[in-house]
């Protein structure tokens, strides 16, 4: 029996009624008087020089109230392309008009003259010298060239000896690796621990493969939207559909050179984010610029097509991975060379390549990762950014080793998993973790140990690890004279976080869950809050809420001690009333009575304040097992069973946690089996839900969720972030299950029917 009464309970969400009835206000529901409709003018080519932009015809169209280009950005920060476009759909200008059709027509009337340039979309082509150069001509060295250059540098630094001959030899050797001079590199990241060459040499089995993971979109239901209104004093209000209103405020201030206090961002109810709803310039900045120029409120709302062309999806990548192990199942070395498709910007989660190390004891690792420019839009976060890609490679290869050794994939993983105190490859030592418990839980729940499979059926297992982030936050809680309480804060609700915060406050104030209400303020009114991404909200705002409730609790006891003529040590807050523990007969005062009393005395309103900075969390594991059936003739795969366990630390609301596990697992399934943004020299060719397939409920069985609770010492009640981990293993889970069914590894996702048919043919299994 739990010691808690509100946390740990499957309680309905605080926003359930407004969501179900349609009362919730989304960005597109905002319609201030006089509002204009904005439309962004986008590049019609994937790579081209801009010769000229002529807005004169559009300006003449009746109903057009403002047209902006990069010339209208006072700070000069890049909002619109000027001399060159890098991808299909890149913004070049924006218009505001009295009607969306007029705005669309005006956008078409803006005459842009292009000089079309050669295009490169494939990362392995983009790194070659023959590829068109997208941004700059700088090159970077690959792993072998880096090693040789390091040796040369080391020898040259040795003043005491003459290494001229050796250096000359090494310099000659460099020329053997001309194919390791990479072009179009946007970023690089290198990590090494131990000696991989030695590890491979000592291994009985070495497996190497190349894993290709496609670029996928977050496909949140609500497209990007913002409504901006600049008043005559220069004050700007932005209704923004975003995961982080405070980040949007500082982003707009920085981009446009406006003081923070001149900007108020009102976060509207979010129709999903998954990491993709932090962008400042996608719609918010154009809306502000248009409103400033037109002197009227302006809405800029993306279509679904625009989402695909100019959203910030998850990067695709190519990972070459090599693993060595002994024949009795000990992993000795793992080396990765990864190329992440960062599109037109830099970054693209390349640091996440380290996650190929998984949760295993691996004494020798080496990771070389590169971000590569292509003619695509930039990328951003998507639920555990970079982890599903890297973990797919790591966990798929692990199964291939287990098969070669002849070990059960679950036993092989359990044997190599780290525990508390074990060294994390290139990363310190492990705190208390629940890796083995979580894997064992899913294996037991799925019936792994006595699993059966008919012809063309297979079972797959994989695990993924992730640690939630943390950020600053502030919460106020007020206790009212009727005994109810109200929470005030500034963080965006993301799939039930407001509910978790409410449960925590109700728990500490010992009042019924439904007597506590929660309100989100805008950036003008609410205390600062970190953005709702990185699985931070329940961890950060849960801790903040706890501090606020404890602060109120303290004040309640002070006031009650005065009222009841005793000292605080004799008091207990329980069931919404303050009791004198020592009194006989019992003596108490209800919270409402106390709140009313303190309003009419010197006490004042009961207000608790929570202000929280940062604490570190501990790693969470998600472990999954799938059973599939593959039709070898058509290549279609049906998933028959999907079981997902996750170490959540402590489930503040187990129903919401199960929802997160189900949602993340389904997104992982989709990435493995069907989702893929496709490109050719013209740009993205499937910018819509006809040819960018997300699964429906008909594609999957009910996800069976298993909650494991190994508490995080710094989490509220031990809770860890739950949003991101469940997507991390599913790509590998599916690939491993398909391999078990057909005997062939599909290492290039998604596992489309055609790939299965071809793979079977190429391996002599085909009809």
């Amino acid at each position, binding site marked *: 029996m739990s010691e808690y009464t509100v946390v740990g309970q499957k309680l309905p969400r605080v926003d359930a009624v407004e969501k179900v009835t349609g009362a919730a206000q989304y960005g597109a529901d905002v319609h201030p008087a006089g509002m204009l409709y904005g439309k962004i003018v986008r590049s019609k080519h994937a790579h081209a020089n801009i010769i000229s932009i002529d807005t004169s015809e559009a300006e003449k169209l009746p109903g057009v109230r403002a047209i902006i280009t990069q010339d209208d950005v006072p700070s000069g920060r890049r909002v619109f392309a000027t001399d060159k476009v890098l991808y299909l759909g890149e913004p070049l200008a924006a218009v505001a008009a009295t009607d969306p*059709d007029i705005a669309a027509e005006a956008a078409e009337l803006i005459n842009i003259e292009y000089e079309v340039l050669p295009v490169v979309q494939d990362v392995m082509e983009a790194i070659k010298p023959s590829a068109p150069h997208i941004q700059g001509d700088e090159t970077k060295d690959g792993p072998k060239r880096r090693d040789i250059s390091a040796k040369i540098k080391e020898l040259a630094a040795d003043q005491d000896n003459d290494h001229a001959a050796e250096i000359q030899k090494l310099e000659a050797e460099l020329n053997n690796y001309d194919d390791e001079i990479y072009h179009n590199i946007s970023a690089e990241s290198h990590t090494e621990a131990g000696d991989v060459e030695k590890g491979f040499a000592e291994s009985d089995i070495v497996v190497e493969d190349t894993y290709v993971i496609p670029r996928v979109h977050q496909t949140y239901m609500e497209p990007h939207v913002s409504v901006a209104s600049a008043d005559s004093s220069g004050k700007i209000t932005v209704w923004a559909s975003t995961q982080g209103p405070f980040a949007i405020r500082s982003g707009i201030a920085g981009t446009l050179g406006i003081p923070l206090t001149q900007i108020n961002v009102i976060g509207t109810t979010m129709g999903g984010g998954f990491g993709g709803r932090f962008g400042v310039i996608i719609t918010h900045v154009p809306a502000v610029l248009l409103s400033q120029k037109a002197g009227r409120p302006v809405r800029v709302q993306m279509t679904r097509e625009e989402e695909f062309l100019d959203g910030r999806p998850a990067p695709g990548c190519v990972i070459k991975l090599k693993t060595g192990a002994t024949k009795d199942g000990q992993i000795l070395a793992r080396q990765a060379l990864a190329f992440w498709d960062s599109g037109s910007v830099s970054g693209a989660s390349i640091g996440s390549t380290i996650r190929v190390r998984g949760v295993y004891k691996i004494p020798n690792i080496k990771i070389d990762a590169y971000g590569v420019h292509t003619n695509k839009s930039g990328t951003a976060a998507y639920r555990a950014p970079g982890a599903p890609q890297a973990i797919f490679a790591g966990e798929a290869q692990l199964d291939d080793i287990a098969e070669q050794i002849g070990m059960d994939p679950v036993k092989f993983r359990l044997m190599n998993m780290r525990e508390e105190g074990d060294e994390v490859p290139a990363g310190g030592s492990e705190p208390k973790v629940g890796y083995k418990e979580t894997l064992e839980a899913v294996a037991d729940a799925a019936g792994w140990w006595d699993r059966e499979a008919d012809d063309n059926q297979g079972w797959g297992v994989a695990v993924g690890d992730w640690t939630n982030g943390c950020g600053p936050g502030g919460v106020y809680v007020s206790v009212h004279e009727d005994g109810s309480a109200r929470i005030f804060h500034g963080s965006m609700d993301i799939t039930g976080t407001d509910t978790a915060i409410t449960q925590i406050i109700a728990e500490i104030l010992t009042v019924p869950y439904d007597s506590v209400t929660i309100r989100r303020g805008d950036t003008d009114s609410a205390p600062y809050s970190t953005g709702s991404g990185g699985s931070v909200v329940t961890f950060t705002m849960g801790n903040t809420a706890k501090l606020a409730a404890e602060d109120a609790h303290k004040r309640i006891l002070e006031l009650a001690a005065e009222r009841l003529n005793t000292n605080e040590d004799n008091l207990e807050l329980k069931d919404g009333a303050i009791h004198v523990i020592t009194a006989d007969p019992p003596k108490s005062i209800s919270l409402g009575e106390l709140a009313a009393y303190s309003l009419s005395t010197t006490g004042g309103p009961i207000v608790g304040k929570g202000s929280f900075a940062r604490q570190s969390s501990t790693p969470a594991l998600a472990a999954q097992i799938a059973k599939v059936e593959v039709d070898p003739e*058509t290549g279609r795969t049906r998933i028959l069973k999907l079981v997902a366990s996750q170490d959540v630390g402590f489930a503040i609301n187990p129903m919401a946690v199960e929802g997160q596990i189900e949602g993340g697992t389904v997104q992982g399934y989709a990435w493995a089996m069907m989702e893929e943004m496709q490109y050719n020299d013209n740009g993205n060719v499937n910018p819509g839900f*006809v040819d960018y397939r997300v699964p*429906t409920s008909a*594609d999957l069985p009910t996800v069976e969720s298993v909650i494991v609770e190994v508490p995080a010492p710094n989490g509220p009640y031990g809770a860890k972030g739950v949003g991101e981990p469940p997507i991390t293993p599913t790509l590998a889970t599916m690939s491993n299950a398909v391999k078990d069914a057909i005997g062939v590894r599909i290492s290039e996702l998604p596992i*489309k*029917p055609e790939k299965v048919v*071809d793979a079977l043919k190429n391996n002599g299994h085909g009809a």
Partner: protein
Amino acid sequence: MKNFEFYEPTTLAEASQLFAQEHTQLLAGGTDIVIEMKAYTESPQSVVSLQKIPGLSGITCDADNSITIGAMTNVREVELSQHIQEHHTALAEGASEIGSVQIRNLATVGGNIAHASPAADTVAGLLVADAQVQIVGSDGERSVPINELFTGPGQTVLKPGEIITQFTLPSPASGSHYIKHKIREVMDLAFIGVASSINLEDDTITDAKIGLAAVAPTPIRATEAEELLKGKSITPELIGQAGEAAAAATSPISDLRCSAEHRKEMVDVLTQRTLQYALERARS
């Protein structure tokens, strides 16, 4: 979408006259045209609704089991019709593959055919049913066999002002089946669609029809494969040969959905499967 004139005529003659004007589109269920207009890929000056014209929807079955389907009959009705399910199973199965239930409640079989997508889900079933397409225009009525209706992607033999009014399906085959090759279980477009129908007498095939979608610029019949089957008793070898012959009849393209080679291979596989199912239905 851009502004347009909207007409709701109550007679076919009036509708035909309006539709004969340039830059005019017909509105049946609206599940294609409305989306195209919202995306500005179609911006007609006039839209002529067929929804107020009486007598264009409904399914009737005569004593000899020949069936007529009004062009404005919604796809959901085709999917659920006892007559269609019993006598033209492949057509009912094809109808059940279109979009979602909500879409099928709006979309019409006439619209699905007149839109002339090579991947339309009702077309393979209508091909193996040997449907006749009834057409009304300013020159009066005419009838075109469904396999002569299409001339290219989005193109038909319909002349300006001509409107499809109904489909007539002669006495049915004894068994038919449709399979759509797709990735997603529901609400996907056909990578290819295959329908087969078989007439059986004493285990000899007296007639066979194979209709193929999304494997050529228009939906097609695999007539050589059909000829192979006629007059013979079914064997696994014969079904295999029919599959190969059907694949040979196609001229698919490679596109973002899959390669031409995969489409050909799947025509072979799914022709065999649909024949097998059609055969089982014919025998039962």
